[in-house]
């Protein structure tokens, strides 16, 4: 799909828990070919201290209704302002941006690990891959059950496991302490992850060590989102790459991890 600057109609803004919101945006034009890992760059309107757009991963798509949804976590001023948008208002965004995860083959056994707002592309990926549920394992980490996002709508697409730092949901500890991850990792042929940097690095290094295919979705600071400013670079083995156009999805083997 061609990149455009689009005025979306906000159909729904649902608070999922204290800091997380799901926004459903309807495009005036049909949307097509959107894949997990891609993102949109959202204008934050009428905010006195915000100049640049803010990038958010695509959480889901409904091609019939021309809608995409986002999972927005309040981190600072921009994300806060965005979550204050009311259904019926318009939200301007540049989309679709970035390269998606490499979709697995039917024969793959895949592990998806999401932490924090990084669960968004993982849920979208689970859905896209979930035709053969036995092969999709999803591991989701949160600080506590109160930060956790309800994923029941996605549980049909795979087997879900949870880790929370306080043990209030699933196993206690980080995702990297979870039995699924610390157990027989080689049962998985592909690992995909998105979340805090430290989490992704720990997962990526383990995958490198175990020689498992692994893709991560990075969240470098962006100015443009479509490859012109060269601000979002990641220092890869083949030099500086733009996270917004060469990524945000990278194979861990290409990174200097």
């Amino acid at each position, binding site marked *: 799909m*061609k*990149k*455009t*600057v689009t005025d979306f109609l906000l159909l729904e803004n649902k608070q999922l828990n204290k800091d997380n919101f799901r926004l459903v945006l309807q495009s005036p034009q049909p949307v097509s070919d959107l894949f997990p890992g891609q993102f949109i760059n959202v*204008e934050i309107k009428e905010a006195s*201290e*915000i*100049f*640049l*757009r803010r990038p958010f991963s695509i959480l889901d798509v409904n091609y019939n209704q021309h809608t995409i949804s986002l999972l927005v976590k309040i981190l600072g001023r921009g994300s806060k302002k965005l979550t204050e948008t009311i259904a019926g208002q318009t939200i301007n965004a*540049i989309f679709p941006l970035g390269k998606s995860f490499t979709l697995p083959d039917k024969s793959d056994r895949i592990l998806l690990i999401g932490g924090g707002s990084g669960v968004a592309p993982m849920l979208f990926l689970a859905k896209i891959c979930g035709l053969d549920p036995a092969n999709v394992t999803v591991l989701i980490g949160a600080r506590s059950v109160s930060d956790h996002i309800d994923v029941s709508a996605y549980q049909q697409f795979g087997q879900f496991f949870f880790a929370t730092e306080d043990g209030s949901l699933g196993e206690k500890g980080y995702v990297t302490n979870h039995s699924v991850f610390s157990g027989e990792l080689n049962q998985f042929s592909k690992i995909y992850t998105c979340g805090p940097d430290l989490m992704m690095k720990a997962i990526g290094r383990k995958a490198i060590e175990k020689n498992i295919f692994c893709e991560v979705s990075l969240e*470098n*600071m*962006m*100015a*443009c*989102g*479509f*490859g*012109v*400013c*060269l*601000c*979002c*670079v*990641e*220092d890869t083995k083949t*030099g*500086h790459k733009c996270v917004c*156009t060469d990524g945000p999805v990278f194979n861990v083997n290409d990174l200097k991890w």
Partner: protein
Amino acid sequence: MVNLGIKIHELDFKNPVLTASGTCGFGEEIADFIDLSLLGGIVVKGTTLKHREGNAYPRMAETPSGMLNAVGLQNKGVDNFITNIYPRIKDLNTNIIVNVNGSTIEDYVALTERLNELDKIPAIELNISCPNVKEGGMAFGISCPSAEAVVRAVRKVYSKTLIVKLSPNVTNIADIAKAVEGQGADSVSLINTLLAMAVNAETRKPVLSTITGGLSGPAIKPIALRMVWQVYNAVKIPVIGMGGIMNATDAIEFMIAGASAVQVGTALFIDPTIPVQIIDGISAYMERHKMQSVNELIGSLQC
């Protein structure tokens, strides 16, 4: 129908709206959003003789009504430009201008010689004002003798339209403009970014890997306007104005202050369709003010 055409030296522009170097890639990156042939011109990403990786991440900080960047002229070098990029963009039907950078006069000359060969590059923009790397030439752009030296050397090997991009980080930009005019520059463009800095109060570290970076965006518009006006009053060659232009009104202000053309930079990050909106906005303004030619706007400030 209003006439938007302008001339810089011997080069015709269908309208006075260009995209600024380092903010539109090679044009292709924004081709999804706008018909590039509508533009007056495209100044492509700063090019150097050799491949450059640029500065380390982080390279960006958001600031009030603006941003800092410290990209550091990341580019694949002139050979790559000539071999891989030029063939793809040369027939875009707009003026493609290459932004030329070096750390020595020899670099500038060698690079210019290569670009002089390219039929469909009718002009270069000599960047003596990038604040982010030694190779960006800001050292050349902040004193008259060094600015003169580099322009003199480049002028000898370049016969097409030579635009010199000036640094705002100087006490008297009009003096530098006069100096480069004296060495045969066909036009000056200004301003490049203002040297600036951001600090993270929580970590007590600089936000940028390079500590300082270049400030762009609406925050600098009043400074840029002042400099364009000063330079317009000091030189006879056409001035190309930029710095924080976000809409047609901003562009018109620059032209009133003396700019023959404008470049749109940081605004593209917010909305890559802005240059086309500006072209339409200038037309609408001219119709409203009963102007036939956009030349009537240039330097029309009534003091």
